C-alpha cells in the first residue's frame, strides 16, 4: 500500500507505539483486500457497534483503555449502538440480577466512550442516520462506521461510502482519520453481482424480502428490479423506513453492505443498469419463494406451541412515524377484538431522541394506554442474557430472529397476536 508522508509517520511511531499499532492494523486489514491507499474519513461523525459492557469482552475494554492512556482518541465524535439494559423492559428479578452481572462493565465502558469521543448521552442507537440523531452522511462521504444495518443504509439509501467494518476497526478509523480504500469505497466495488427480480403481487414484508435476498447473495451487491412498483421513485420518509428494515435483514441474514433499488436509490437513479456487472446472476422472488424462505426458519423454542412471553418491535430502532403508525394499528386491533390492553407484553424500541419527540405527541399517552412499553434498549442485547434467551419471544425483526431464539412473524401476524390472539 502506498502511504502519504503523514500516514507513514503514524505507522513509524511518530505518535507512539499504540498509534503505530492502530495504523498497522488498518494497513494490514486493507492490504488483505488489495487496498492501494488509505482514504481520509470525510463524514463528520463515526458510529460504533459496541455499546454493551459485556463482562467477558474484557480484552476489548483493555484495548480501549490503552488507546485512552496513550492519547489515541477519536479525531471525530461518534454515535454508538443502543444500550443493553433498560429497567422499563419486563424482566424477572433473577433476570435483572443476571443482566447486571453480564453487563458488569457497562459503567466503565460508557466512561471510556466519553473519553474516546461519544457525541452525547443520547447518541446510543443503531439508527444514527435519522434526523433526530443527526449523524446523517452526505452522498460520497467516506465513513468509518460499523453496525451492519447502519452501514448498509448509509451506502444504499444515502449514497455514502463505507465498508462493513468490524467493531474496533471502525474506532481505529476514527482515531487515525483514515480507512483503507477497497471494496465499497471504490466505484468497482459498488457494482452489482446479482439482479433480483421481484415478481410479487403486493409489497412484501421488508424484513422477509431482505432476509431472502441476504441469504441468497450473501456479501454481494444486489440490483433489485420491481420493488419500485410499490415504493415509487422518491425516497420519502415511509420509503426510507421500509429500506431501513429491509437493509437490516439483508445485512444480518446475509452480509450485504450495499444494495441498489432500480429507479429509487441514488446510484441506481444516476447510473441505472450500468451498475450491473456482466454475467450477473439472477434471483427471482415471488410469493412462493418468500413462503419457502419463511418456512425455512427453524423454531428452537422448547415447546413450539407455547404462548409468547414477550414481543419486540424495533430492531433496528423504530422511526417516529413507525411509533405513530403502530399506535394507530394497536389501538384499532384492540378495538376490533374488544380488548383494552395488548395480550402479550410488548416493547417498541427507538432512540432516546425519537422517544422524546414521540412523548411530545398525543400518541404517547394513547400507546401507553394499550400497555405497550417504549424503550431505548437493544433487543438483541436483552436476549443475550442467558435467562432471557430461553424466553418465548416473538418479533417482526428478521435481524433479531437470526441472532437469537426469537421467532419471526410478519407485521400483520404480530398485530393479530398482540391484540387479538394472545398466542
Amino acid at each position: 500500500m502506498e502511504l502519504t508522508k503523514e500516514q507513514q509517520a503514524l505507522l513509524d511511531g511518530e505518535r507512539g507505539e499504540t498509534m503505530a499499532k492502530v495504523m498497522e492494523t488498518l494497513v494490514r486489514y486493507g492490504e488483505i483486500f488489495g487496498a492501494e491507499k488509505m482514504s481520509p474519513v470525510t463524514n463528520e461523525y463515526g458510529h460504533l457497534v459496541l455499546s454493551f459492557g459485556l463482562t467477558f469482552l474484557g480484552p476489548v475494554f483493555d484495548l480501549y483503555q490503552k488507546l485512552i492512556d496513550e492519547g489515541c482518541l477519536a479525531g471525530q465524535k461518534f454515535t454508538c449502538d443502543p444500550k443493553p439494559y433498560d429497567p422499563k423492559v419486563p424482566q424477572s428479578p433473577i433476570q435483572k440480577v443476571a443482566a447486571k452481572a453480564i453487563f458488569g462493565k457497562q459503567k466503565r465502558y460508557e466512561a471510556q466512550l466519553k473519553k474516546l469521543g461519544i457525541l452525547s448521552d443520547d447518541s446510543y442507537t443503531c439508527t444514527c442516520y435519522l434526523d433526530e440523531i443527526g449523524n446523517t452522511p452526505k452522498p460520497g462521504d467516506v465513513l468509518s462506521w460499523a453496525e451492519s444495518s447502519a452501514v448498509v443504509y448509509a451506502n444504499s439509501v444515502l449514497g455514502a461510502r463505507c465498508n462493513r467494518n468490524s467493531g474496533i476497526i471502525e474506532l481505529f478509523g476514527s482515531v487515525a482519520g483514515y480507512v483503507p480504500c477497497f471494496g465499497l469505497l471504490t466505484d468497482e466495488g459498488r457494482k452489482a453481482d446479482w439482479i433480483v427480480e421481484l415478481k410479487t403481487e403486493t409489497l412484501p414484508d421488508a424484513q422477509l424480502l431482505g432476509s431472502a435476498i441476504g441469504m441468497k447473495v450473501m456479501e454481494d451487491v444486489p440490483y433489485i428490479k420491481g420493488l419500485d412498483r410499490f415504493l415509487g421513485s422518491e425516497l420519502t420518509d415511509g420509503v426510507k423506513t421500509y429500506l431501513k428494515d429491509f437493509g437490516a435483514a439483508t445485512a444480518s441474514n446475509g452480509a450485504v453492505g450495499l444494495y441498489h433499488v432500480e429507479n429509487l436509490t441514488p446510484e441506481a437513479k444516476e447510473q441505472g443498469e450500468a451498475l450491473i456487472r456482466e454475467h450477473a446472476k439472477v434471483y427471482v422472488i415471488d410469493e412462493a419463494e418468500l413462503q419457502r424462505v419463511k418456512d425455512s426458519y427453524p423454531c428452537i423454542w422448547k415447546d413450539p406451541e407455547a404462548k409468547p412471553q414477550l414481543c419486540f418491535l424495533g430492531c433496528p430502532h423504530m422511526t417516529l412515524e413507525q411509533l405513530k403508525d403502530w399506535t394507530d394499528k394497536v389501538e384499532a386491533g384492540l378495538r376490533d377484538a374488544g380488548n383494552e390492553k395488548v395480550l402479550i407484553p410488548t416493547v417498541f424500541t427507538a432512540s432516546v431522541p425519537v422517544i422524546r419527540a414521540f412523548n411530545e405527541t398525543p400518541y404517547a399517552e394513547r400507546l401507553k394506554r394499550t400497555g405497550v412499553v417504549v424503550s431505548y434498549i437493544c433487543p438483541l442485547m436483552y436476549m443475550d442474557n442467558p435467562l432471557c434467551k430461553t424466553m418465548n419471544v416473538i418479533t417482526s425483526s428478521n435481524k433479531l430472529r437470526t441472532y437469537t431464539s426469537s421467532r419471526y412473524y410478519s407485521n400483520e401476524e404480530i398485530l393479530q397476536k398482540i391484540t387479538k390472539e394472545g398466542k
Partner: protein
Amino acid sequence: MLKTFHGRPIAPGSVTAEAVVTKNGFNTLASMQMMFIQPKTKCVDQSNPDLFNKILGGKALCLPQTIGSTTGGMFLFSAVEIGKAPACLLFSKEIDSLAAAGAVLSDVWSAHKMPVVDKLGDEFLDFVQDGDRISVKEDGTVLVLR
C-alpha cells in the same frame, strides 16, 4: 488418506487440530455469543444446521466465509484473547471484512495466536469433513488427514 491444499496466510502460524466444517456462512455473533459462559465454545446459531450445538473451541473451523453482525471481528479477537477461539480458521473463499478484522486484530494485539488461511478453494470445503485431522503451516499449506 492425506490431501494437501494451499491458501493465503492471513494470520500466519502452525497448528494441528480436528476439523469442524460448515458449508454455510458462519455467523460469528449468532454462533459464539454464549462462549463466555460455556466451558468450551459451542455453536448456538439455530440457523446453521452444520454447526448448531457443536464445539468450536480448539477446533480447525473450516468455512466459506463469515456473515452477520459487525461485532464479528471483535468477538473473534476477544475469543482469541481469552483462549476460547477455534484453533484456526480455514476459508475456502476470500476472507470477508469482519473475519479479516478479527484475524488482524488478534495477530497485532494479542499474545495468543489463531492462524487464519483463506482462498483454499471450493475443493477444500467439498473434501474436508468433521473429525478430519488438520495441520496448518506458516506458508498457508493445509494438510487434511482422514
